[in-house]
C-alpha cells in the first residue's frame, strides 16, 4: 500500500523521521481504515468481532440520537453542540462502513423529556460512555479497525472536554 504523503506535517520541516511517520500513517490508514480487503489478514474479523463492531455501531447510533435529543431539549446549545453532533454522525458513517453487514437502524432511544438545565451534563455523560466503549473495543481489533475505533474514542474524549 503506497500513497503519496498527505499529512499537514509534510509542509512542516520537522525531522524526516517525523514526516515519514505522518506520511506512512496517512497511507496505511487510508487503505485500511474502513475497507474490508479479503486478502488482508489484518482486516479479517471473527464472528465475535462482527458482533463487537455491531455493538460499536449501536453505541454510536445512541450517541447521535443523544445529540438530537439534547439539541431538541435546549436549542441554546446549538452553537456548541451542532459541530460535535455532525462529527458524531460522520464517525457513525465510518463505523458502519467498517462493520461487515452493518446497516442503518432505528435506535429506540428514550423519549423522556430532558431537563434543559441538565442537558449539557447529561450529554457529556453520553459522550463519555461512548468514548469508553470505543476505547475498550479498539485493542480487540487489528489494523484499520483498531485505528478507527481508537481514533473515534479519542475524538469523543475531545468532545467530552468541550462539554465540560
Amino acid at each position, binding site marked *: 500500500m503506497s500513497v503519496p504523503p498527505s499529512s499537514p506535517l509534510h509542509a512542516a520541516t*520537522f525531522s524526516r*523521521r517525523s514526516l515519514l*511517520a505522518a506520511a506512512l500513517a496517512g497511507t496505511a490508514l487510508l487503505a485500511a481504515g474502513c475497507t474490508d480487503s479479503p486478502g488482508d489478514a489484518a482486516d479479517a474479523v471473527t464472528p465475535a468481532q462482527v458482533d463487537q463492531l455491531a455493538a460499536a455501531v449501536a453505541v454510536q447510533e445512541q450517541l447521535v440520537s443523544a445529540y438530537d435529543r439534547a439539541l431538541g431539549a435546549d436549542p441554546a446549545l446549538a452553537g456548541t453542540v451542532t459541530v460535535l453532533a455532525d462529527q458524531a454522525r460522520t464517525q457513525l458513517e465510518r463505523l458502519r462502513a467498517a462493520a461487515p453487514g452493518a446497516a442503518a437502524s432505528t435506535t429506540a432511544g428514550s423519549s423522556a423529556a430532558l431537563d434543559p438545565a441538565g442537558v449539557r451534563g447529561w450529554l457529556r455523560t453520553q459522550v463519555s460512555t461512548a468514548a469508553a466503549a470505543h476505547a475498550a473495543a479498539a485493542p480487540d481489533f487489528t489494523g484499520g479497525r483498531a*485505528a478507527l475505533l481508537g481514533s473515534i474514542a479519542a475524538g469523543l474524549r475531545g468532545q467530552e472536554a468541550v462539554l465540560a
Partner: protein
Amino acid sequence: MSAQDDGTPEGRDGTAMADDGSTTPGSATAAEDAALQEALAAAHTAIWGYGVVGAAVPLEARGPVVAAEQAHQDLREQLTTLLASRRVEPVDDEGGYALPFPVLSPVDAAALAVTLEEGAATAWTWVLDQATEHSTRELAVGALTGAELRAVGWRAQAGVTPVTTAFPGLPTT
C-alpha cells in the same frame, strides 16, 4: 539474554535480530516495532517542540506546556523501555528540528503545539494500525487520547475551529 548457536541474539519470539538492533523482517512484531519507533520519533519531536512553545508563552501560562512536555517524556520512556525489551535499538532524537513557521507569539506557540500533538496522534494511530500485541494497542489508545485532549486545548488557544476533530490521527479524507 538468549542466543542462537551462531551467537546472534534472538528476539522474544525467537527471531534473529539484526546487528544494529532492529528486528529482522520476519519478526512477529517487526511492523509494530517500526510503528513504535515512529511514535518515539514523534515524542522526541514533541519534547523539543514544547521547549519552543514554552519560550513563547508567559511564565504564568506555562503550566499546560510543562504538563504536555512531561506527558511526551513519559511516553518516550515507555517506548524506549518497550523497544529495548525487544532488543530493538530505540531511535534517538535529532538534536534539533526546523520549525514549520515562526513562533513569535503565544498564538503561534499554541499553533505549534497543535502541530506537535497532531503529529503524535498520527504516529499513534499508525501504531494502532500496525500493532500485533493487545497491550500495545491499549497503550496506543491512551496515548492517542492524550494527544487529542491536549490538541483540543491548544486549538482553542490558537483560534482554530472547530477545536475537536472526528478522527484524530486519521486522514481527513
